[in-house]
């Protein structure tokens, strides 16, 4: 990928531009490395098997929700309901999936189908996804409250067992993150239909003229978002063991931030699954472990999230400013 770009570019001007492009591509990894370095400096003991297992505890559901958001953003849409959807899935997993597994599985599959239907609705009526998903966020929250009016329920034992796996040498969250990134990377970046999906956000007209169904592409993207949202909710409830209707509310913003930190852009189908997972890990680590070690009072932790986003975006601008003007 990199070599072909380097070969085709004229050599004189290419070095600077190529260097910038690589730096920009490395930015998600650099931000994560910076956060880890800061934690290592503030508290060396955190850099250990158990340290990472604890710090990255919630990184798996965040990474899965970020992947879900990434599929939606790849098609130039935005899902403002993913947080409450994850919360609803948690409630289903902690009640029906535990008490009546078949009903639970059926509901979760139905959720994915509903996501695909939403994609179809958004495409066919040409609706603004922001408004539709904002409305849906109320629907999921309402359903979650109806299902579980009070915090409680119990996650199925097998789910808790999966989330409690302790592989040798490498902490489970890191293994899971690598798997999620690999699945996303090979699925969306290395398959031919993945290229069609990304292109449906990049140049819809060209894809349509080439004979591909944009409706099918949109439905696939939303169904994938629904599927990863389901996985995110199941992972979350596997960790927390019981659910609450509001448990996922913060995930909408975290997932958008993760995609953007990972180098994704809102338009043009430009997303990066590996970057998105790195972005999610950065948000998960920066969100509380780093700030706790830095003795940032809880009041200001939300602000620190915003500041991290702004700093990374500013760094991106500095890198690309004199490079290729868009």
């Amino acid at each position, binding site marked *: 990928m990199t070599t072909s770009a380097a070969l085709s570019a004229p050599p004189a001007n290419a070095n600077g531009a190529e260097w910038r492009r690589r730096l920009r591509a490395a930015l998600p990894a650099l931000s994560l490395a910076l956060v880890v370095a800061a934690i290592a400096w503030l508290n060396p003991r955190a850099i250990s098997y158990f340290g990472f297992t604890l710090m990255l505890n919630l990184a798996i559901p965040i990474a899965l929700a970020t992947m879900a958001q990434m599929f939606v953003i790849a098609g130039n849409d*935005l899902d403002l309901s993913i947080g409450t959807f994850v919360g609803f899935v948690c409630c289903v997993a902690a009640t029906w999936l535990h008490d009546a597994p078949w009903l639970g599985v059926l509901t979760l599959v139905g959720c994915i189908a509903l996501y695909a239907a939403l994609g179809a*609705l958004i495409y066919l*009526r*040409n*609706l*603004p996804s*922001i*408004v*539709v998903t*904002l*409305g*849906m*966020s*109320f*629907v*999921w*929250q*309402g*359903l*979650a*409250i*109806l299902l579980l*009016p009070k915090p409680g329920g119990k996650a199925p034992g097998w789910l808790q067992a999966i989330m409690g796996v302790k592989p040798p040498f490498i902490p489970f969250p890191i293994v899971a993150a690598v798997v999620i990134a690999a699945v996303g990377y090979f699925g969306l970046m290395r398959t031919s239909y993945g290229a069609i999906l990304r292109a449906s956000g990049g140049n819809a007209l060209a894809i349509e003229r080439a004979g591909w169904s944009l409706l099918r592409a949109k439905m696939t993207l939303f169904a994938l978002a629904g599927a990863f949202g389901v996985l995110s909710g199941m992972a979350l409830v596997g960790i927390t063991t019981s659910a609450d209707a509001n448990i996922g509310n913060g995930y909408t*913003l975290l997932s*958008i*931030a993760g995609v*953007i930190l990972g180098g994704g852009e*809102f*338009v043009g189908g430009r997303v990066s699954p590996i970057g998105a997972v790195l972005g999610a890990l950065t948000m998960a680590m920066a969100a509380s472990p780093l700030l706790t070690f830095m003795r940032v*009072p809880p*009041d*200001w*932790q*939300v*602000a*620190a*999230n*915003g*500041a991290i*986003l*702004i700093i990374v*975006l*500013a760094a991106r*601008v500095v890198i690309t400013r004199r490079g290729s003007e868009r």
Partner: protein
Amino acid sequence: MTATFQTLLARPWIWSFVGAGVVWLAAIAFTGGYGAGGMLTAALSLSVFTVIVGVGQMFVITLGPGNVDLSLPANIGLASAVAMKTMGGDDRLVIVGLAAAIACGLAVGLANYLLIWALRIPPIIATLSASFIIQSVDISYGRGLQIKPPPGFADFTNIVVAGVPMLAILTVLFTIGAGIALNRTIWGRSVVAIGQNQRAARLAGLKVEPVRCATYALCGALGGLNGALLAGYFRGANVDIGNEYLLASIAVVVIGGTSVSGGNANLPGVWGGALFLVLLLTMLNTFGVSAGVRLLATGLIIVAVIAAAGGEKRPR
């Protein structure tokens, strides 16, 4: 007569008022006509707050695709705390407090624009990042804040003249002013022109960036004003006081017939959309449904209304 009727039907905003009327009728049919007037008075009082931020959001959305202010809830929360602290429960400081709240919102709007302009990032992510920071400032600044609004100010926000709240009358006047600004000023026409085609607007010599800056600043200032009024109406500031206005401000704009992709604003629709949303909640409350059903029904109806209204014609 039929001609006027048909031109009226062709207006996109008429449907939001029709919707508002239908839910009102459904609610009073349930109560058997009891409290029909009171319901309207209450709906008008609550609609005011949605209309004020809705108008700001409408101007921002009209700027074109991707333009939206997600920092309104945090902005409203902070401004409500600023207003209550500045007023300090003293009737003589009401004007100062209102000015402080508006200035606070204005600063938020300018900061939003600065992020969009300097980082060249989509407004969604800029206002989102800004809202994180504003929220923290508010939590830290407004911690344990239990200052009541000055009695005169609290009474003022609750005055009802012949069944019509005083604030609603003032807000109608404000909406008319906003309509003049939209249709008769260079700034208003520029906002619409930029929304239709930013490149064409720039090539035509319009000052695109100053207009965008002014629009975000206006939306922020209206958020600040709304925070102060909400704190007066609900007898105190609160970090979460603005939370519901994220969905509400965007929903009323869209339900009211303003184009989400920009370039086509619709002011009367903001009122129609606000009345529809408030009356919808009133209706569900009248039916005595649980919180879960209320959320579910609100969400489904919003999605249904948007789906029925449909989006832009797809360019071929």
